[in-house]
């Protein structure tokens, strides 16, 4: 009955590889997000999708490409991984437009380590 789930939980890989992180939400929300949390715990929005359409695309390298096959899924694909990509990546979802219900629900995170 997990609301927002991510796989994998841990990802260790070599520089230069391509990897994907998957996210699924069963809350019926129409908007999903990807955040990056750095080693100092600072969280920053990367992308936002509403009904499979890209809404927010912050300044991230174009090696990062989100893909939303349907509104319950938002996957993150990363090409040519670099050491600086090591971080914890969080997926989140929310329902836009409902008065008083604008909080985001977060997944458990994926800890990516690039060697």
């Amino acid at each position: 009955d997990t609301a927002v789930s991510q796989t994998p939980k841990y990802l260790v890989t070599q520089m230069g590889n391509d990897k994907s992180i998957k996210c699924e939400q069963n809350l019926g929300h129409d908007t999903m997000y990807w955040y990056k949390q750095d080693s100092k715990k600072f969280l920053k929005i990367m992308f936002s999708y509403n009904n499979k359409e890209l809404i927010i695309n912050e300044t991230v390298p174009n090696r990062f490409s989100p893909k939303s096959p349907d509104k319950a899924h938002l996957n993150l694909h990363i090409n040519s991984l670099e050491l600086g990509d090591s971080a914890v990546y969080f997926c989140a979802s929310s329902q836009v437009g409902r008065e008083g219900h604008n909080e985001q629900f977060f997944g458990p995170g994926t800890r990516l380590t690039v060697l």
Partner: protein
Amino acid sequence: AQSVTQLDSHVSVSEGTPVLLRCNYSSSYSPSLFWYVQHPNKGLQLLLKYTSAATLVKGINGFEAEFKKSETSFHLTKPSAHMSDAAEYFCVVSRSGAGSYQLTFGKGTKLSVIP
């Protein structure tokens, strides 16, 4: 533009004593404000939210926060700390956009509880 400043990076309290985590915000419009908690190696959990209803907001686990527009503050309090409260706390301001909510996170306050 919106921003959040958490005034303390680390707060240490004794078990059973009050907790105060300070947060100031800046926003060009009526903000929605949140406090999230992150326990070690876990995801983010919503503690409470302010969305222009009552200025004193009660959350889970005995936490509450008061929205003070004149002081642009949204401090988090709890009357009596418990060991299980030890975690990282994030103050967050939200802005509505077309099809999504953009969250801006503070840098976090680490709460330590001394037995």
